[in-house]
Every structure is written in C-alpha cells, then in structure tokens.
C-alpha cells in the first residue's frame, strides 16, 4: 500500500488549459474523493494518475517513485472506469484474471485469486458468463473485481456508480466502503455526486475549473467551506446565498443587520450563506446564540418523508429551509412564521474573490 502525490500538475488539450496546477498528497490507505462539477477536470486528473494521459507539466508520484514518464503498466494502479470497460470477448473469469495474466502470474494462482474476489463480491455464479449477459450492477461488480484481484498500489474509481439506479447505488456505496476497509488500499474516487462524496470519503478534494478549491474532511467541507463555490456546490438543497455589505462593526444584508465584525474593510461586498438545515424556531435556540430573527412568509412546503423543504420569503429574499417532520406542523402555506439564525452557523464570503471571511460576533448585550 502506498500513497500518491501530484506536484503542480498542468494539462492542456490544444490551447485549452484543463488542469491549472494541481497539488495533492494522498495518504497511504486513505479514501480520497475528487468532487466537482462536470468538466472541472476530475477524470483528467485520474487518467494522468493512471498514465492514460500525459501531463503537460508537473510530476506524478506513486509511493516513493516518480512515475511521471512511466507507462500505465509500470505504475501498478487499478482503475474502475465509469462505463466499466470490460473486455467484451472474454468471460467474467478471464476479464478478472487478465491483469494477472499480463503479469505472468501462474494459472493456478489466477484461479484462486479470481475465485476469492468473486466470492467477496458475490459474483461467483457469473464467472462463466460474458459481460453482455450481465446487468449494469453486475458489470459494476466485475469491474471492481478486476481491480481488486490485482492488489495494486492504488485504486482509481471514475464515477463507478453513476450508471446505477438510486437503490443499487446506495448498496454499492456500502459495499465499496466495506471492501476498502477489508483491503485497506489507497483509493481515489471521482464523483460529481456530493452525497456520495460526503458519505464515503476520509477526505474530499473539491475541484473547480481545473483547480483545487478545498481539501478537507467531509465535515470541514460542509461546515466550513472556504469559498463561495464550495459552499454552493456542497449540500442539498443548496445553501441560501444572500447579498450584503460590510459596514462599521456590522454586516448589512437584505434580511437584516448582523452585529458582527468581518475581517474586511467597510463597504466590501459580501455574500451571506445559510444552510437550509440552519433555520431554527426561536424557542429551540438559546437567546445568546441567536444572531438574527426573521419574520418570513411561507410560500410552500414540499414533504420528503421524515423531512420537508419549506420555501420562505423575507422581504424580497427567498430562503429554503429543511425541517424535521415534527416542526412541519408549525408551517402553513400563506402564513407568517418567525425563525432565527444561529451565530455559529453563518458563512460570510467576500463577493468579489469568493473567499470565506472570518466573523467575530459582538458580545451579547
């Protein structure tokens, strides 16, 4: 098991710069998720790690080796492709054993290892079939099986669950995590599904337009996004973003005045971010924690099961809140409701740079 490192990695296709300096250290045994919007360069990063694509500049290290100029076969990584990329003319058993055969492993050992991996993935009875005789979920497992029989330095997954239905996707997530625990192999996992990222990762790397926006544990990404992009991208429903401005000793926004100091000069344009989970009833929040009290008009309520999304309006500002079922009874479409914001759950960003601003609340009166 080994880690990996990307050093100021750049990649251009023609005149288009796709990766603009990626620096990333992957700890041995970790489960790292690359998360970002479509087209931000996640697959390209992964393909450069695998050696399928050559970087324009920068270095790729796997373990203690500089593999920047090496062919994929010399890097000893295994990759699970988004579209599975099984060998159509081989049985499942041969599909899984092909990487070992390529490394001149004795036939008997190939058989043992394929059987063992098939047992782990519950696909033993599929070994004699061909890829096209399998369902998407089964092909998925075969693709994973083909990766794990190799026992490589590094596992690379490129959106492996994106073609599965919602139920199977959740099942496979658990299964992948169990596999990761059992094999303790370093894994890099690409997705643009933030729920997948939050539930699976030790560490999330949020990418945007060829750059890394933030690296952190899932809770750090969620509770302390370093930029407007991360704040807006992570979380569902998306964070409420409200325009505002710094004044002396306070932050003025469309929904009210926050008695707090941000480390930016007066007059600086800001964006206030509030997660939908962070709207509270005043009686469920300690008075000292209340940063702002809002009188809102309830526009409509969408029930999701045990929770509901409530769309609210304060003045001209529309807010979305997520509430548990026991609170939903307090809302009625067309009525007024009073809500409060917690001072520990506010995010303020510089509007022009998108960077997070630290907030120091005034001592409660």
């Amino acid at each position, binding site marked *: 098991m080994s880690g990996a490192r990307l050093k100021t990695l750049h990649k251009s296709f023609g005149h288009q710069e796709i990766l603009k300096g990626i620096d990333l250290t992957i700890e041995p045994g970790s489960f790292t998720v690359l998360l970002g919007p479509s087209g931000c360069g996640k697959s390209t990063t992964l393909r450069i790690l*695998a*050696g*399928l694509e050559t970087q324009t500049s920068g270095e790729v290290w796997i373990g203690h080796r500089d593999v920047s100029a090496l*062919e*994929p*076969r010399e890097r*000893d*990584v*295994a*990759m699970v*492709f988004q*579209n*599975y*990329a*099984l*060998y*159509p*003319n*081989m049985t499942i058993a041969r599909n899984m054993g*092909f*990487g070992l*055969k*390529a*490394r001149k492993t004795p036939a008997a050992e190939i058989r043992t290892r394929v059987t063992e991996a098939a047992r782990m993935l519950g696909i033993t009875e599929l070994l004699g079939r*061909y890829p*096209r*005789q399998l369902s998407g979920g089964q092909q998925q497992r075969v693709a994973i099986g*083909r990766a794990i029989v*190799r026992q490589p330095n590094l596992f690379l997954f490129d959106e492996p669950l994106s073609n599965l239905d919602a139920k199977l996707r959740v099942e496979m997530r658990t299964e992948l995590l169990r596999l990761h625990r059992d094999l303790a192999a370093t894994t890099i996992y690409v997705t643009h599904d933030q729920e997948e990222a939050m539930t699976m990762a030790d560490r999330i790397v949020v990418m945007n337009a060829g750059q890394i926006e933030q690296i952190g544990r899932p809770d750090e990404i969620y509770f302390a996004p370093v930029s407007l992009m991360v704040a807006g991208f992570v979380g569902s429903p998306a964070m409420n973003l409200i325009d505002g401005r710094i004044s002396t000793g306070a932050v003025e926004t469309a929904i009210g005045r926050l008695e707090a100091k941000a480390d930016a000069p007066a007059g600086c344009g800001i964006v206030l971010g509030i997660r939908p989970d962070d709207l509270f009833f005043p009686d469920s929040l300690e008075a000292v924690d209340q940063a702002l009290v809002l009188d809102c008009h309830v526009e409509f309520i969408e029930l999701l099961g045990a929770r509901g999304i409530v769309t609210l309006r304060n003045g001209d500002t529309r807010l979305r809140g997520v509430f548990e079922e026991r609170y939903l009874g307090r809302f009625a479409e067309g009525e007024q409701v009073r809500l409060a914001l917690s001072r520990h759950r506010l995010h303020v960003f510089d509007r022009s740079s998108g960077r997070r601003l630290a907030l120091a609340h005034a001592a409660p009166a």
Partner: protein
Amino acid sequence: MHLRFRLILPLAAVLAAIMVYPLAFSGWISVHDYRLDRIDDVAFEGIGNYAFILTNPPFWNALTNTVVFVFGAVSIELALGLGLALLLRRMVHLPNTARAILLAPMFITPIAVGLMFRFLLNSEFGVIPHYLAALGIEVDWFGPDLALFSLILIDVWQWTPFMVLMFLAGLEALPKAPFEAARVDGASSWLTFRHLTLPMLRSVILVALIIRALDAFKVFEYVYAITRGGPGDSTETILFYIYKTGFRFFRLGEAASMAFVLVAVVLVLVIALYVAMRRRPGQAP
C-alpha cells in the same frame, strides 16, 4: 390474377431473363455434348461431362493451382492488411495522404494491373529484374517455378488495400475503453492484440476473407494478360481453363460442367466461413 402477383411480374420476368434462363441453359449444356463448332449435332451426355472432367488431370491441375492461388494470396493479404491497418492507425504525420496512396492500386482495373506487371517483371526488359540484377539477384519471375507465386504477389499488390480499408474501418469502430483498461491492466501490445483486438475484429476479418476469397477464385485477368496459363500449365487457373475449353476449343458442355463444379466448391467454402462467423463468443460453440 391477384394484383400483388401482377406487381412483381416485371421483376420476376427480368430475373428470369438475366438469371434463371442463363443458369438453366448452362445447366442444360453441361449435360450435353455441346460444341460451338457442331451446334446442330448436340447429343445428351447425362453425367458424362462431369465424369470426364473429374477424371481429367488438367482440370485437377487447374483446380489445385486456383486453390494455391486463393490460399496464398488471401492469407498474405490478410496478414499484410492487418499489419498495415494497425500501423496506419498509429501514424501521426500525414495519415490521410498515406491512406489515399495506399488505396490507389484497388482502383486500377485488373487487366491493366496484369499488363503493367507483365512489363515491370519481364525478364528481359523489365524494370524490377533489371535492378535486382544490379544487386546480383537473377530471378525469372514468370519461369515455371515462380510464375504462380508472381501472380499471387500481383494479387497481393492490388488487393491488400481492400483488406486495409476493411480493417481500418473495423478498428475505428472498436470501443476505446477496453483498450485503456488493458493498458492499466498492464497488458503488452502483443497480449492486447492477441486477446482483444483480434477477437473483437473477428467478424470483420471473416467478412473480408469471404469477399476476397470469392474474388480470388475468379482470377482470370492476370493469367490472361501475362502467362496464358504457362509456362506449361503451371499457372492455369480454373476460370482460365474453363475459358480455354469453352471458347478456344469450343467444348461448351465440358466448360459448363466445370463451372458448376466450381460453384459447388465455392459454396462449400462460403458456408464454412459463414458458420465460423455465426459462432460468436458468448454462445454455445
């Protein structure tokens, strides 16, 4: 008569005129002693013509020559075509120009190709033997030992481009992903070729083989333009022998029966290849 039958009548008539009638007529000829120089004295022979040709050494010689020609030409074209197609795919500079040039021989009519090589390879004033002699290599391309082989080479020169074209199209149509997976899996180029490219190209290869083999069985122009079956009968192919028997010696009955034997041989070959093609991995063998 019902309208739908009347509507297909013109087509049926055309088919009858250009296919059924000639076929039936040559069938009829093949069981008669039909000679162009004694056209009013035609006797029924039954299987006499067939019995004669099947015991006639020149017929077997022609058939053997043809099989050697087909087998030699098509297998060289297959190997060469596949190799060239793989190389062309990797070519970085001027790939389209190279493809266009490589395909050119296919667009020349075979009789012209025959004449061209007759002069190029002529042992007295041909360009190729001239330069070979300068290198100390003396070869009589149309001598008794080499003539059939030379005809094979000419066929290879003209028809390898067809194979290249087929295989290029086949290669372009292959999915990219399994090949990337194979690279990550660490497969060498040989292993990839052997276990991925070749099996996935299987049906294209078989179709190309069928088309080329059928065409090569009908080889006539090169023989006619260059060797006329000689020296001796070393390059006499089945079609040339049929032509000779029918139109030079006027023995049309015998020629027609040989044509039917050829059809039978070709049919067996086509069916064999077709069965091979139908057997795809994933189905019971």
